[in-house]
């Protein structure tokens, strides 16, 4: 009999029986002046230019119409103790489309598969600037080429394309499933956290990190609202 599966089963029973789970929700608001989004000139590669009818701007700071900040990575930093989480079987997709990365900020679990796709009829290369995980730098010269990667260690790192110097994205790797990226409404939800005390961290590529302590009660969840300020 597999001892580990017994242990996991016991843990699941314990979780279900004793500590009920709750969601941590919140939003990331933004005040002050955001830098004017920089126009991206794609002249170096005509294939890129052709794919855009409207001017393209950088995604370093994207303030939503409701005054919230997009592309903020929110995750549990501390409080999960020694719990272990198996990676989900579902793959995540990371695409190079119109000479930009979609999504611009992505969260993934340790061991989970990431499928990197070139959706453009031009050469891209994905160069990871990871520190904990092994770096890679793979060219995808043809449209539709795919590359599958997994990461072993938690960290947030940058990904860039060397052909198109404006292309950059960030990938956050976590040892647990409790992370989210803010979208067009600036809100997030970390689902089904077991009751307990947690440190939640927000990460933004320009404005850095903020942390907040929350308590997830046995019944119901908790709220964590972050505020970033432009200068």
């Amino acid at each position, binding site marked *: *009999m*597999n*001892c*580990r599966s017994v242990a996991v089963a016991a843990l699941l029973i314990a979780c279900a029986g004793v500590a009920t789970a709750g969601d941590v929700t919140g939003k990331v608001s933004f005040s002050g002046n955001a830098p004017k989004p920089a126009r991206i000139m794609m002249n*170096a*590669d005509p294939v890129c230019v052709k794919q855009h009818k409207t001017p393209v701007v950088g995604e370093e700071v994207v303030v939503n119409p409701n005054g919230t900040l997009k592309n903020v990575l929110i995750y549990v930093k501390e409080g999960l103790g020694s719990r272990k989480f198996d990676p989900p079987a579902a793959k995540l997709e990371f695409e190079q489309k119109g000479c930009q990365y979609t999504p611009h900020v992505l969260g993934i679990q340790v061991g989970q598969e990431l499928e990197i796709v070139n959706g453009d009829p*031009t*050469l891209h*290369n*994905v*160069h990871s600037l990871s520190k904990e995980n092994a*770096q*890679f*730098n*793979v*060219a*995808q*010269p*043809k449209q539709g*080429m795919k*590359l599958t990667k997994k990461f072993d260690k938690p960290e947030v790192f940058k990904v860039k394309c*060397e*052909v198109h*110097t404006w292309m950059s994205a960030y990938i956050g790797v976590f040892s647990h499933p409790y992370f989210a990226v803010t979208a067009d409404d600036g809100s997030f939800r970390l689902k089904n956290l077991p009751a307990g005390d947690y440190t939640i961290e927000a990460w933004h590529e320009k404005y850095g990190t903020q942390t907040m302590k929350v308590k997830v009660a046995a019944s119901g969840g908790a709220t964590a609202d972050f505020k970033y300020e432009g200068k």
Partner: protein
Amino acid sequence: MFTKRSPRPIEERNYSVYYIVFAGFLFLGTMWAVVDEVVTRRPWKDVQKDYQVLATRKMSEQYDQAVAELDSSALVELSARLAASQDSMSSPVYAAALAGYDGVRESLAKENRRYQFAKSRGDEAYYFYKKSLHEGEENPKEKERLAGDESEMASHQAAISTLEKERDSLLAVLNRYRAEVRKNQSALTDLRKKTDKWDAKVKKAEGAPIEIKQVMLVDYDKNPFNDAKARIDRCQTCHQGWNEDVMEDVPQPYRRHPLPALLALHKPEIMGCTTCHRGQGTALTAATAHGEGDPFWENPLLKGIDVWASCTTCHENQSHLDGAPVYSSARRTIIESGCFGCHEIKGYTDLQRIGPELGKIAHKTDPQWIFRWVRNPKEYNPHTRMPNFRFSDDQAEAITAYLVDVSSRAPFTIAHGAYAGGNAAKGKELVESVGCLACHSIGEQTKVRELRGSSYDMAPELTRVGSKVTPDWIYDWVRNPRHYNPTTKMPNLRLTDGEARDVTSYLSTLKDGRAPGEKILDLGTAATIKRGEGLIREYGCSGCHLIPGMEKESRVSVSLSNFGRKRVEEMDFGDTKIPHTWQEWVSAKLKNSRAFQTDRIVQKMPVFSFSDDEIARVRLFLLSQTKDQPDARYIQAFDAKQQQIETGRKIAYQYNCQQCHQLENEGRFISAIIDDPAFLPPIITGEGKKVQEPWLHDFLKNPSVAGSPNTIRPWLKTRMPTFSLTDAEISALTKYFLGLSNQELELRDYRAFQPDPVLLPVGKSIFTDFQCIKCHPSGPPPRPGEATTSDLAPNLTKARDRLKPEWIVEWLADPNKLQEGTRMPTFFPDGQSPLPDVLGGDARRQITAIRDYVVSIGQPARSQVSTR
């Protein structure tokens, strides 16, 4: 008067009580001796018992984990399958086949025998028949007999071949059953490999005998008569876990050695432990073995980083060892601090002086500055490598007087006013981008120094340079440093006149705001000058500086050749109260070289400002300076190749290539001020494998000028300076790079390399498919001033004359392996080609094809010649 003795005659007295009591004492004493010998004096037995418990527990944990990880359903299934396959061997089918097989074999043997008999009879008949023919009378009877025998043989033969077929088919049946069992057995073994491994280890640990573990090196040491002397090493008696991964985090003496990779090269099973760690190898108690608590042990254990001193024993001629960064950095500290200027140090007697020439110093700066500098160099520049001699005002005045006197007589002229018209802001930008900051700190810009982690700078800090030298001098210097100082290691950054004016303008603004008071100096008196000359000789200034009239001075201080074995009794501790040990003496001396000075004993060694880390490193180097030498076969041969490497390495150190480049895993300190690795100067450890020797020669002679058609990496703002190397230096560097890549200098006609005509067009099509041209401009070099299409990657028209053909293949296979952090991506991840239809999807062939195309780019004239 005598007291009356016992009336009983001696024969009748009974001494058994005494006898028993003393016999008892004797018995107890014997018992005590046995216990003491077996238990008390063998503490290692307890250590081994504890180890056994600990190791068994740790290994059992691994075993349990392996069991937990074991795919139990697969195990059940495989075991069932194995049992089934073994069972099936007792099935009627198998039994029938086996019985049939045995029967057939028996019949086959019989049939063979019958055939042999028939053959013998046939031979006999044949003989007689032939004989009758010879005798002229054919014997029909024999002929008949012969025919009968032959037909009998044929019938046996037929039976044999039938039986053989039958046997083979039965054997095939048997083998099917047997193979199934074997297959299941080996699958089960594979599945249980890990559990079985740990099971075996646990059993071995549990049953390990309690015994002394000893390594004997028969011929490592020599006695004073130069005969081989055995070295006995019993460290592993207690340090049993040195090779067990599970013992990584446990306390000593059970812990695994922290550097398994190093042990793979220096096997403790053969070399023992004391060869590196020292200590009393034969001892069996920790205190004696380690030599603790008593200053008179001959070989105390080397503690902390001191253990790296041992590398010198066998590698004394190498300034860098790949597996020993501490050793290498200790050596570099010695070289950079210029210790060899005053002390004779083996291997470093041929290095260039580390300080600047002083022959023209009066043309560079004014006497007031020289005086203040001689008085205390750290006052002007706290991170200078020049140590403080703590000269008095009078001494400093005399030395200044001598220097001013000899140098003002030297001919040196510079253009006056040529510097005028520079733009300080532009100059600042240049200083911050072309690479000056890699060696010179300015004000707050100290990141490189911090990354380097040394207490000293490799080039003068420029924060106050505007108060030291005039704009005229700066302009002359930055345009060509060798004009003022022909032996300087400051390279030429090929500034244009305009750039030089800008830089001069900026540097001239860097003033010393502290306004030191002027001191009235008497510099002209002959007596003062004479006294200065004496002081300079006495204190050995010419060990670091080239000074007119003192070019051939010998070293002023002692040789360090056996300093590591200097005895404490030979060391003078002055009035200090520090513990009398070698280590304490050396540390105190390096911290403050005048620490042991008394009113009677004057010390002349100048005071360095080493950090504690540097003191530890210098100390370990000193510890390594011994005459202990093992038998020649243990010493790393300093053969031609090693000599070439070491010679080139010293030149690389002298010009400080490592400040910007990564070389032998050292350096690249400029990365402190360049964020993106793509903009860093390249890693050059593998340069020998990469570039053609004639190209390297031309490049080192005259590195390409930024922005010119020859620029290899137009995207770099940092400039590869011109070091004005001599041909001999370039040749030494070339051999060094070749040596690092395990190559020899040989005459190769790189132009003779011909692309494969079949692969060439394929390579061209892959080159197009991969869109290489997106980043690599590969047309003719752009004319000056013409906008380039791309500045992302080197222009490939130069590949043919620059790169070694075999290197291109290696590069294309995995660029990051050769140049970590390069922007060049791999097109063949995990060695797989993304083009399955080209050249049968063979990545290696495709890479060769690309290479063949790349070397043909930009060579139209050549290919025309060859086709004509």
